[in-house]
C-alpha cells in the first residue's frame, strides 16, 4: 500500500483505535464516535475505514474471545501500530503548526 494519507473520517477512527488501544472494535468505535461527533453514523462506514487503515498498516487486528454477546461471534479487536501512531503525530503537528500561524484576528464581537 503506497497510499499513506489519512482521510478525515479515517483519522477520527484511527484516533478512536488509539484511544481504546487493543480494546477497540467496530461497535465500540461507532458508539464513541457518535457521542463525540453528536451525529448518527453507519457501522459499515466504520468497517470500511478500519479495513483501509489496516491495509495502510496503521492498525493491526486480532480476534477477541468468545462471549455470550453477539450470538457468540468473536469481536475483532484493533490496535494502533507504530506507523499509525506516527501518522497521527504528523497530522497533529501539521494542524497545530498551521493553527499557531493564525494571527490574532479580531472578529469584532
Amino acid at each position, binding site marked *: 500500500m503506497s497510499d499513506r494519507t489519512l482521510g478525515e473520517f479515517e483519522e477520527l477512527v484511527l484516533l478512536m483505535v488509539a484511544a481504546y488501544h487493543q480494546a477497540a*472494535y*467496530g*461497535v465500540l468505535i*461507532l458508539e464513541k464516535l457518535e457521542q463525540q461527533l453528536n451525529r448518527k453514523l*453507519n*457501522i*459499515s*462506514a*466504520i*468497517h*470500511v475505514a478500519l*479495513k483501509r487503515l489496516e491495509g495502510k498498516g496503521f492498525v493491526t487486528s486480532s*480476534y477477541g474471545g468468545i462471549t455470550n*454477546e*453477539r*450470538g457468540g*461471534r*468473536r*469481536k*475483532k479487536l484493533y490496535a494502533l501500530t507504530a506507523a499509525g501512531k506516527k501518522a497521527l503525530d504528523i497530522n497533529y503537528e501539521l494542524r497545530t503548526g498551521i493553527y499557531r500561524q493564525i494571527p490574532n484576528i479580531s472578529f469584532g464581537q
Partner: protein
Amino acid sequence: MNHFPPKYALKFLRWFCREDYLEEIEGDLVEVFEKRMPRSGFWAKVYFYWLVLRCFRPGFVKSFIKVNYSNTTIMFSNYLKVSWRNLLRQPFFSSLNILGLSIGMAGALIIGLFIHFELSFNRSFADSERIFRVNIDNKIAGEVNEYAAVSGPLANVMLRDFPHAESITRFRHTNSIFIRSENATHNVKEEQVVGADSAFFSFFGIDLLYGDPHSALSEVNSLVLTKSAAEKHFSIHEAVGQIMILDNDQKYWVRGIIDDFPKNSLFRDYTVLISINSFDDYDSPAWNNWNFPTFIKLNPEATKAQLDDYLATVKERYLIPWAMQFIPGLTIESAQEQERTTGNYMRFESIALTDIHLKSPNISGEFSLNGDIKDVYILSFIGLLLIFLASVNFTNLSTARSLNRVKEVGIRKTLGSHRKSLVHQFLVESGLVSFLSMVLALLLSFLVLPYFNYLSNRSLEIPAGQWQFWAVLLVATLVLSSLSGSYPALFLSRFSPIKALKGQGVQPSNGAHIRSLLVIVQFMVSVFLIASTLVVFQQLSFIRNKDLGFKKEQVVVLNDVQVLGNNALTLKQEIEKLSNVKSVSLSSYLPTPSARSGLTYFPEGHVFEPDKAIIIGQWEVDFDYLRTLGLELVAGRDFDDKLKTDSSTVILNEAAVAMLGKTPQSAIGLRLTQDFKREDKENMEFSTVIGVVKNFHFETLRNSIDGLSLVLGKEANRMMIKLETTDYSKTLEKVEQHWASVADGQPFDYYFMDDSFATTYDTEQRLSKMFIIFTLLSVFIACLGLFGLAAFNVQRRSKEVSIRKILGASVFNISVSLSAGFLRLVLLAILLATPLAWYAMNRWLQDFSYRIDLPLWVFVLSAILAIGISLLTVSYQSLRAAIRNPVHAIRNE
C-alpha cells in the same frame, strides 16, 4: 416477537461477504441490532436490513471466481509465462511472426466484413425471404434485355387472381427533381426519387418517424422524405404538413418522414418518395409501359415456383388481349406462332429480394448499382490466401527455430514432461502469438477501414457492439492458432530426450521438405497475384485509352438545362458567341452508359414483318450534336438547320445499318417507320436515312456497340459545350454568368465529359486497386516469411560460413551458396503459378467485348519481380553473413 436478527438478511450477508471479514461484520451488525431491540423490534429489523445492504460494497464482497488451484491451471499459467519469455527472448522472430500474422488477419478481417455486408443486402426488410420482384425478360431481334420494372396493371392483376400473394407494392420510376420548400427560393436537386404506393411501409416493415403510414402516400401530390433529405429544408419534427415545390411548378405536401434507408438495401440512395397516384399513368391499362417496379410478398407456404408458374400465364391472359386492340389480326395463337418462328419472346420472371444485389446483373430500371457475386468469391479467395500465407509463415518459422528448442524439449522430457504437455506448451505459444496478432489486426483494420470504404464504395464498420462479432473473432483466432501451431507442436514434441540432449535429435533437414513446400506455395500465390494485377491493369488502361469514336476531351456538360424552358436556346446562342467555344449542342443523350430503351423500326415495304424489324436506341439531338462530339460520318450528311424537311430524317450508326443488312452507302435514302401503331395505316410517317455515323462506344466496353438512331428533337436536359482552349476557368466563368442571367436562381451544375467517362469504369478501377493492395500484402507476407527463414538459415550455418571463409571462399561464393536453395524454390513456384495465372486471367478477360491479348511479358515481368524480391530478401541476410568476420562465429565452442 423473537430477538434474532432477520434470517434472510443474515443469509444474504453470509452469501456475499468475504469470509475473512464475515465474523467481525456479522458480529458488529448483530450487536447494533441487539442494542436497538429494546426500543423497537420492528425498526431494529428494518435497520438490520439496511445495514446489511450498506455492507454490500465491492470491498466486502467475496470473489465469486472460483480459484481453481488444480494442476491444469498451474500448468497453463506456466505455459503462458514460458511462452511470453520465449517471445521476448527472440524479439526479431517474434515480431516477424506477429507482424505477418496480423497483416494477414487484418486483410482477412476487412474482407470478411465486406463479404458479410454484401451478403446482408436487402435482408433488413420485414419478411425479406418471402419478397420477390417481377422482372421482364425480353428478346427482340436477337437481343436479350431484362427490365427491373414491369407493366403498370400487373400489380392489380396479381393481387386479384394469384391466391398466394400476401401483399404487393408498386413503384414508379421517375427522374431526378428540383425541390424547395414553399417559401424558399433556392432549389435542391434530389437525384434518386421514386413513386411509391401506400402499401410500401407495411410491405417492407418501414416505420415512419413522423406521419401516418396509412395516409402518407395515399393522396395525390403527397411525398415522404428521408430524414437527411428533410433536414435540408426544415427541422424534421415540423416537416410533416409543409408544402414543397417540385420542379418549380408542382405543389406537394410532406406527409411523412422516414429514416434514411439502410446502406445495404437497394433503396440506399433514395431520398424522396412520391405518392404513386400523382403520376398520370398510375392506373393506365397500358401493358407496354414498363415503368413500374413491382414487389410481391408470398404467403409463408407459397414457393417461387408457384409464382413463376402464375407469371407465365399473365401474358396470354392480359397482355396479348390488350395488344389485340392495336394490332389487327393478332390472336393468341398468332402471337405464339410468331414467338416460335422468330425466337423472340417476352416473359415475366421473379427474383428473390435477397438475390437482387449479388445474383442479378445491372439491368434496366434497377434501383441501385448491384454488386457481383464474383467479386465476393474472388475476395473470399484472396482473404483465405492471406490467412494461409500468414499461418504458413508462422509454421515455417516455428519449425525452423525448433533446433534452438531441442535442448529445452530434451530437458523437459527428462524432468518428466509427457509429450502431451509439451504439445500443450507449444500450442499455448502459438495461441499467444495469434491473440497478440489479432489485437494488432483489429487496430490495423480500424485504421485502414475508412480507406477501404472509399475504395469499395461501401460503408463498413467494425461491429464492436455485437457479441457475435467477438465470438467469431475468438473462434477464428483459436482455429488459426491451432492450425498453424499444430505442426510445430507435433514436430517439436517428438524428439527423444537422449538424442535431443546429445545433440543428435534433429538434423537440419528435419521438416525441410514441408518448409520448402510451404515456401513454394507462398510464392506461387505471390506470382499469381502479381501477374493477375498486371493483366488487370493492362486491360483497364487499354479500355481507357481506346478510341471511342467520339471526342470526349474539352467538352463541358451543363446539367438540367430543361429548367430554363425556352431560355435554353437563348443561352445556347449566347454561349456560341463566346470566344474559345467551338460549338454547343442541346440534347438529353450523352455517349455515356445509362439505361436505354429500344425502339422498333420497320423499313418501308416490310412493316409488321418481325424478322425485318430492328430494335435500336433513339437519341433526340440537335443540329450541332455531331460536330460537338466529333462524330464521324461514313456516308451521307449531317442534319442541316436550313432544311425544314430534316425533322423527318434519321441518322443511323454502322451497327444499326448492319442490322438492316445494308452497307452505309446503300442505306442512305432508306425510309424507316416506328409509327406502326396508328389506326390509319396510309398516313404512317416515315423517316429517311440521311447519314451514317461511324460506330462509337456509348456502352461500357464490356458490351459491343448496339444499333442507334439519331433524330432531331426539342426536348433536352443537357447542354454540351466544346471548348477550344485549355483555360477552362475563364470560359466557364462567362458561361456561368450567362446561366445566371437566364436561370432565375437554378443551381449551375456542370462537369467535364472525360471525368464522367472515368467514373464509368469506377467498378473496375476500384477492383484493380483492391487487387493491388492485396497483392502487395501477400507479397509482403511471403517476403517476411522468406526473410525469417533466410535469417534463420544464416544463423544455423554461421559456423559453416566462417570455416568456408577461412578456407578461402569469396563473399560471392558464400552468398550464392546461402541463397541458391531459396532461389530454386522460387523458380519452381514461378513455373507452377504461371499457367494458373494464365488460365484465370483468360477467364476474366472473357467478360470484355474489347480486350487485350494476354501479353507474354506480363508473366516474364512477374517472374522477374518474384525473383528480384526474393533475392533482395535473402541476399541481405546472406551478404551479412558472408561479410562478417569469421572470428565471431567460431571463437567459442
